């Protein structure tokens, strides 16, 4: 699949296909970011596009007005996004589900409204003539080029998400999602870990934004509204909350499906909507729920992270005579 994706631009010179594929990759990056917040930690966030906007605008402003390179502008975007994540995180620590959704939705709207009304962000017209992304002498200025940039980004994000998931951080997030009271009994500091989830989500969202700005060369507030946030949530929900493979697949479905049905013109979103309802009724936990790829996932993980094979640690099927405290004097 990765190989197929790597040679995709070689198969087609069709700029439309490339454009759709690029959009799908971008949504995958955002969905992987949101997956940390919603999928791992179970905190419903309906304003995730805000972090995407923060990255895009920071890069847009710094590269056009201050002539920073795109690469250098990623870092300040991340810093601002993390600060905003903490600002939205602190007051919502005690909120659950519906209430949290309303507050995050408001946060998304605030960021978009700021972008529309501030002079520095170019108001409703946004920022244009954003320079191309470049590393050293390599300048990326074609659709195929950005396709590859985002392909690399998707792979990095996917590996990073997987790594987080199988660390104590990921386990703590899942515990909070599953049962907050029991998580406390494990000694998990709920507030800290919720904030970490927001922070990591914000980092991924902001980096995606920073690279999105040069890819489109122009950004406007319209790209970062509630509908964008909803699209990201949809990708995560369709694919399968908490599943790295799932949310990437979900993002691809959300992006490509309406394009495939373009011939139905106005009716395509209606068809899409009806299919979504059916999907959620039949597979409420998404197309590829968390453990769908368990076998394959574990094998890939052991390859990439040299992870531990628990089966090898079983000494006997029965009960050992010494317990976990036995090694102590």
């Amino acid at each position: 699949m990765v190989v197929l994706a790597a040679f995709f631009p070689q198969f087609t010179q069709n700029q439309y296909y490339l454009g759709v594929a690029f959009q799908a990759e971008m949504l995958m990056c955002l969905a992987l970011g949101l997956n940390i917040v919603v999928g791992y930690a179970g905190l419903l966030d309906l304003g995730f596009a805000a972090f995407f906007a923060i990255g895009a605008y920071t890069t847009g402003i710094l590269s056009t007005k201050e002539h920073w390179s795109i690469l250098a502008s990623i870092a300040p975007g991340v810093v601002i996004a993390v600060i905003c994540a903490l600002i939205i995180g602190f007051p919502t620590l005690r909120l659950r589900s519906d209430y949290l959704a309303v507050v995050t939705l408001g946060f998304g709207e605030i960021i978009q409204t700021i972008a529309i009304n501030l002079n520095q962000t170019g108001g409703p017209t946004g920022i244009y003539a954003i320079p191309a992304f470049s590393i050293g002498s390599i300048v990326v200025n074609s659709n195929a080029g950005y396709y590859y940039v985002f392909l690399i980004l998707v792979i990095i994000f996917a590996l990073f998400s997987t790594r987080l998931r199988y660390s104590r951080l990921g386990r703590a997030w899942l515990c909070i999602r599953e049962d907050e009271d029991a998580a406390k009994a494990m000694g998990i500091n709920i507030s800290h870990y919720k904030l970490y989830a927001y922070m990591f989500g914000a980092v991924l969202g902001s980096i995606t934004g920073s690279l999105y700005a040069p890819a489109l060369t122009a950004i406007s507030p319209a790209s970062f509204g509630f509908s964008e946030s909803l699209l990201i949530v949809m990708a995560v929900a369709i694919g399968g909350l908490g599943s790295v493979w799932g949310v990437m697949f979900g993002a691809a479905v959300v992006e490509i499906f309406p394009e495939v049905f373009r011939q139905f013109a106005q009716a395509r979103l209606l068809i899409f909507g009806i299919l979504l309802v059916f999907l959620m009724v039949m597979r409420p936990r998404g197309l590829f729920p968390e453990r769908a790829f368990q076998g394959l996932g574990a094998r890939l993980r052991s390859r990439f992270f040299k992870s531990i094979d628990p089966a090898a640690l079983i000494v006997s099927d029965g009960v050992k005579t010494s317990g976990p405290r036995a090694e102590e004097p």
Partner: protein
Amino acid sequence: MTAVLEIEHLTLRFGGVNALNDLSLQIDQKALHAVIGPNGAGKTSFFNCLTGYYRPTSGVARFQGSDITGLGAAKVAALGIRRTFQNIRVFPKMSVLENVLAGGHLRATANLLSITVGGPGFRQSERELHKEAMASLEFVGLADQFNNLAGDLPYGMRKRMELARVLIANPIVVLLDEPAAGVSSVEREELSRVIRRIHDNGTCVVMIEHDVDLVMEIATEVTVLDHGRIIASGLPEEVRNDAEVIRAYMGRDRK
């Protein structure tokens, strides 16, 4: 005698109801202490006060000499007081192994940086934690179940998994809320064996239990609660023959 838990005049009120009324109790590090009493006697409230889930209205609880009253649940757990729950609280969508790994959350030493950028510290800490988790699972006889979802386990196994999750933390005090409730007689034997072994390893065990036979069999001390008050405390045989206990707990005076 070194008391690991000292409870003094602990009182918990919900509105006009006295859930706990002036409890004073000392629990020895070497004890396997059973708390019994009729439904609504305040046993679970007592546990919740000790583990930071409830804040007592008044009174003090000390652990190894330091005041733990009003500390948050996570902080109490970090000190080495671990508990299980009456209505079993497993993380259903996580594997059995991951549930136990979560119990060892505070023993994983990898910091944020080494988790995110990677490094030998992260891998080392994960490997050690996995070893400990598998050892804990073997201790309770669930090693072969490690890859199953905790939510798919039958009831008795969940209870044992909850024990493994407690044990991986190397706790100093373990509070078990009705470990044998609702399990089959075979599972009950298994549980009583596991609890006894936890105790033999030097961990202080405090358990709420309705199964009087089990209590008489394994407990070294028994405290009886009724209406939020201690009505008897002492050796199992003493408590068994206490007239007030028989009246409150067993129903009425049998003659």
